């Protein structure tokens, strides 16, 4: 729960990285993502992880990304264990687990530094249909609300003697029912109210609504984008060369 809310929720911070055009932020994260899948050696993946942490520091989000990595450590260790036990070798085991961490942290970096408004703009730019964009943004906007609802429901049911910690797996699953049903019912009621409010503010009048914000690439956006692409290109060539000639 905390891992999710810490690592993938946007936080408003002033930093050079945050100031970048959202498309460039997306590009940087994709670059890290792709690189981590391509590199074949442990030192290289370690370097990439380091680079991600460096950029996180520039984005003043080091602690957040660090925490994401820490919480994902569990899964990473699991990946390591499975690979090692299946005889794929120590280096590969480390490589794959580090790769996992790099993928998670580069994704986390993107979501922590990009606001839902910016996500909306990216989706519009990618020509995602109006309704899908709206559904996505509204869903993100209501995450904290639904979470609060869930806690209040849990409080109410705990006060009626419901105990979460006790019981076997079957019992615990059954104990979720008094939480899930009110949550779902409330969400349905909420959707109805949202629909009325949307209609009342003319939603759907046009397939192409105008926008309050506009994305504009500035010189530093172009610079970062070009630098990133160049690096990716060079490294891909190097890896290709490296892999072709083996070690």
């Amino acid at each position, binding site marked *: 729960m905390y891992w999710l809310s810490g690592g993938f929720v946007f936080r408003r911070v002033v930093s050079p990285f945050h100031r970048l055009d959202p498309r460039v932020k997306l590009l940087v994260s994709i670059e890290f993502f792709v690189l981590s899948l391509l590199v074949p050696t442990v030192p290289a993946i370690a370097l990439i992880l380091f680079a991600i942490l460096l950029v996180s520091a520039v984005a003043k989000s080091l602690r957040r990304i660090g925490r994401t990595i820490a919480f994902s450590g569990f899964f990473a260790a699991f990946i390591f264990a499975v690979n090692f036990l299946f005889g794929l070798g120590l280096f590969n085991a480390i490589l794959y687990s580090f790769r996992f961490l790099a993928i998670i942290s580069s994704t986390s970096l993107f979501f922590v530094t990009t606001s839902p408004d910016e996500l909306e703009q990216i989706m519009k730019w990618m020509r995602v249909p109006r309704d899908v964009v709206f559904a996505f943004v509204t869903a*993100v*906007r209501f995450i904290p609300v639904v979470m609060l609802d869930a806690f209040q429901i849990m409080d109410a049911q705990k006060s009626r003697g419901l105990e979460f910690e006790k019981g076997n797996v079957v019992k615990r699953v059954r104990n979720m029912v008094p939480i899930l049903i009110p949550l779902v019912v409330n969400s349905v009621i909420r959707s109805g109210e949202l629909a*009325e*409010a949307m*209609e009342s503010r*003319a939603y759907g*009048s046009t397939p192409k609504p105008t926008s309050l914000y506009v994305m504009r690439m500035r010189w530093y956006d172009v610079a970062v984008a070009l630098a990133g692409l160049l690096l990716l290109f060079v490294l891909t060539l190097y890896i290709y060369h490296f892999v072709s000639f083996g070690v």
Partner: protein
Amino acid sequence: MSAAASRLDQKRPIASVEGLSFRYPDSQKPAVKDVSLEIGEGEIVLLAGPSGCGKSTLLRCLNGLIPHMYPGNYSGSVSVGGLKVAETPMSTLSQSVGLLFQNPENQIFMFSVERDVAFGLQNLSVPREEMRSRVDEAMRLLGVSDLALRAPHELSDGQKQRAALAGVMAMRPKLIILDEPTSLLDPKTALEVVSLIERLNRELGITFIVVEHRLELLIPIADRLVVMDGGSKVMDGHPRDVLADPRVEGYGVSVPPVSRLYNALVKDGVRLPKVPKTPEEMAEELNAL
């Protein structure tokens, strides 16, 4: 004194309901039965009645959700700002009449206040510069300009209320309907909302229809009190007159203690010169006796 009372000339009706009846498709009884009502421009109208009396249905008939979003058995006519509601699309109607629902949480869709205030304008394809100035204006009027970039879950109840109202105001409607705006607020915040309504009415001439159970909050600023019961309009007049009418207590409306006292005293033969709107007024009158 409201904008309406200070007008010297006859009030033009901004909304008129004639013989309106509406029955939801899966229901036997009509929710609204033969209701006729005229709202003058600049009035502040208080609409009261017990749960199930048809208030919510009437509001939705005024802003167009009925019949556009909720079709059903519809007869009679409703017009707002000269437009026939049943024949005008919501996109046009929303620029004449705005409806603020009870729970501000479920009317704020976007991640930041200013982005949400712009919501309606985006749907109307308003160009960016104009949108920017209208959003800024609406936020300024509602006193939420410094909350422009805040996320809704970071706002207090009162702030959410104002942010949602700003979103409605940005559409520049002449008539704004508020459905139980204070029910989830504490009394002090509720009073702030009331003075906000009064100010917007006075400065901009916006007509307000407010549905409210806590009558004592709105009575000081209302020009009219309309009571509904069982789908029909049963009382309609100046708040002082309606509250002085002993029938009002029988309609399941929360009559404020001071008004109940007035009516009880009348029964006892104690006649006060004026029907008091506030306890302070009543104290004055009693002191004078």
